[in-house]
């Protein structure tokens, strides 16, 4: 069956905070807006159990916050499609092309807001244990470890927040990190105050072991040089993130880490292509800065469209 061709003013790729904020602003400017999401609406925030640093909200679950932003965007006419997966983009021609499983879209503007995804555990045996003891979603899989021994890998906010959440299931929880914790002080205090928790710093996970499922991890204590096995039932990996930019390779300038090069105006090197949120080169990546990027990208996208149509 031939794919349906459709025209949109703006296509936003990625339905995290940056993408949905851009959709909200663009929708309010009466532009036709489509948001495409190949993964989870909300992106990394969909897995956040409790957000306490978004101004105006004392504490909110990531899924609840993003659902509200989605409803806001949709109330102003933006359409969010999380099932029609993007197969390719062509940003080099005008109009730009975004081809999905069911449609070929033409659009004046593309806002790339694809965010980041968790870095996979870089051990050769990790893949065979995925969902058999190795996990990347605490909200989805944490309940399976009720009364069991859990390890969390990582030392940033995401890792410590994950560990704090998982203590509700674990009989014992180890937080394992190769250096010092980088998480904010509030989250660290909560973690250290929990008697179920043992924090193993300067410690690396060298190998996983188990018959079909993980039964233990082999650790290296870098400060003493001692290696030992630790019995665990499951390990949740939070060792950083990588940008979701493969779809745009060769079409827009990126840095060595794969982030799209764009300044505070979110403009890339390709006219009419903007990068917003965690996917672009910047120093601070927070929910608030993602929302700011979405705002900037949408407002400058409208200016670009107006100039284009005046020509």
């Amino acid at each position, binding site marked *: 069956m031939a794919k349906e061709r459709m025209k949109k003013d703006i296509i936003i790729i990625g339905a995290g905070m940056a993408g949905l904020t851009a959709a909200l602003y663009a929708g309010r400017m009466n532009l036709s807006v489509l948001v495409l999401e190949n993964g*989870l*609406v*909300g992106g990394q925030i*969909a*897995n956040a*159990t409790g957000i306490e640093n978004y101004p105006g909200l004392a504490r909110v*679950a990531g*899924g609840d916050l993003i659902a509200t932003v989605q409803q806001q965007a949709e109330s102003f006419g933006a359409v969010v499609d*999380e*099932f029609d*997966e993007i197969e390719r983009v062509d940003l080099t021609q005008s109009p730009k092309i975004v081809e999905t499983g069911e449609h070929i879209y033409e659009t004046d503007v593309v806002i790339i807001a694809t965010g980041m995804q968790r870095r996979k555990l870089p051990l050769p045996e990790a893949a065979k244990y995925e*969902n058999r003891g190795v996990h990347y*979603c605490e*909200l*989805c*899989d944490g*309940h*399976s470890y009720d009364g069991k021994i859990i390890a969390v890998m990582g030392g940033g906010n995401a890792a410590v927040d994950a560990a704090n959440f998982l203590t509700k299931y674990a009989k014992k929880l180890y937080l394992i990190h190769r250096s010092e914790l980088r998480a904010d002080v509030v989250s660290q205090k909560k973690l250290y105050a929990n008697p179920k928790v043992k924090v193993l710093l300067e410690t690396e996970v060298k190998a996983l072991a188990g018959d079909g499922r993980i039964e233990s991890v082999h650790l290296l204590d870098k400060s003493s040089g001692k290696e030992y096995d630790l019995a665990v039932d499951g390990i949740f990996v939070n060792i950083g993130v990588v940008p979701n930019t493969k779809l745009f390779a060769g079409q827009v300038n990126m840095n060595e880490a794969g982030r799209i090069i764009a300044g505070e105006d979110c403009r890339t090197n390709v006219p009419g292509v903007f990068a917003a949120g965690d996917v672009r080169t910047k120093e601070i990546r927070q929910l608030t800065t993602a929302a700011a990027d979405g705002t900037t990208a949408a407002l400058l996208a409208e200016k670009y469209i107006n100039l284009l149509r005046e020509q």
Partner: protein
Amino acid sequence: MVKVYSIHQCPWCTKAKKYLESKGVAYEEHNIEENEADRIACEKLSGDTMVPVITVNDKDFVLGFDKEKIDALIA
């Protein structure tokens, strides 16, 4: 009848349910956090307690959100 085994606050469970709704497929939701019998049934079916699990006849199932596999299951 299509059954979806799920838990609260599970983003992939939410996506799976929304996908079934977008296809006009009616389903029964079974929350394995709330109901021990459902938890046992889910584990018996898939061999695990990972969710979402979608089944049409309590025999064939899809674990996780996999659009192609779900399409084949509900065809």
